[in-house]
């Protein structure tokens, strides 16, 4: 058992739920969603802990409808060569919201966007919570949720129609485009689209 786990329990008491070892030998601690930011800050900034590397951030929804949806944080203390897995359990039927850890680990930015894109978990305090894999006007829902049909919710022709009506340039904000410095030299229609932040133009179907 990772020595951090008893330390967590001693410091945060009730905020730490189930603890234990995973099958791969890692220690797991389940944290109450409301205290996540405090726990993570403590894990990162306390001199004895120093979990300075967020290896991965992802989510799991189980086939068993009774089980909660888990947001999983994989932490590593590089100097101490210690790993810890922190989980937050959310009710899949309820509101999926948890605090963002992007202010602590900047690398969480895109990982949280991916979890938002695939599972619909809203990360409060995230600087730029947008879809990252699917295009931004994607309207079918969150593909990795268990209630999402494998082939999507819309018919194939509707999916093709919506995809073709997306503007490829509009998938990126101006700050992300490496051509941001060349903004003034872009064609006027593209400049206008980027300035308006227009993501797509979808004609009404009949």
């Amino acid at each position, binding site marked *: 058992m990772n020595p951090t786990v008893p330390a967590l329990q001693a410091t945060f008491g009730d905020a730490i739920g189930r603890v234990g070892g995973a099958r791969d030998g890692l220690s797991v601690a389940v944290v109450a969603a409301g205290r996540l930011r405090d726990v993570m800050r403590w894990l990162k900034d306390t001199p004895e802990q120093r979990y300075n590397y967020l290896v991965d951030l992802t989510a799991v929804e189980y086939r068993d409808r009774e089980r909660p949806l888990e947001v999983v944080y994989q932490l590593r203390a590089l100097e101490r060569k210690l790993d810890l897995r922190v989980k937050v359990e959310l009710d899949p039927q309820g509101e999926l919201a948890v605090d963002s850890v992007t202010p602590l680990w900047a690398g969480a930015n895109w990982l949280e966007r991916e979890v938002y894109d695939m599972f619909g978990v809203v990360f409060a305090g995230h600087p730029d919570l947008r879809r990252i894999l*699917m*295009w931004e006007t994607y309207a*079918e829902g969150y*593909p990795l949720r*268990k*209630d*999402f*049909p*494998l*082939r*999507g919710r819309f*018919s*194939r*022709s*509707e*999916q*093709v*129609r*919506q*995809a*073709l*009506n*997306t*503007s*490829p340039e509009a*998938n990126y904000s101006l700050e992300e485009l490496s051509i941001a410095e060349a903004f003034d030299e872009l064609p006027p229609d593209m400049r206008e689209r980027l300035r308006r932040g227009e993501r797509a133009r979808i*004609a009404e*179907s009949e």
Partner: protein
Amino acid sequence: MKHVLETKEVSGSPNFHLTRLEKLIDWAVNQSRANSLWPMPFGTACCAIEFMATAASRYDLARFGMERQAFSPRQADVLICAGRLPFKLAPVIRRIYDQMPQPKWVISMGACASTGGIFDNYAMVQGIDTIVPVDVYVPGCPPRPEGLLYGILLLHKKIKGESLFDAVRRRDEQPLDEHGLRLPPAEIDEISEPFGNSVHQFRSA
């Protein structure tokens, strides 16, 4: 030249041939077009690796007049979609196709580009023929270089059978309709029906 043109020997003289001007022009134009196709490789997955093998020295695409890979659609004749096409890339390939000058042809390389392949899911276009018109489908997962070369030779054959003067067979731009689709929605749904093993899966979870 003899096997292409209808020649007629007049009074036993071998010195001249008679033919129709249209046939001569078609023959000249189509030979030039077929034998100097400039491919625009649109490689998205493992088929692109096989495409590179086809273009490299052992199989040597240059033997068929495809020496120059046009990485700009403005100087390309044939779009080769090598690999699966997600919906997010659908407007991109459509724009590339629209940017290519006429005449233009499309080769759909591999199972995924042709039918969606094993990716019968929410993210993948079920056959690029729902987005752009396709001339040659090359099966395989991925096709071997011989397969792609055979597809290219079939395209040559198709080009040589085209006519500049046949208004019906002339290649149209095939623009998107008012819905932004190339085909009627019912046809797209039919093309995208589950295929092979995936018919055993259910549409709704």
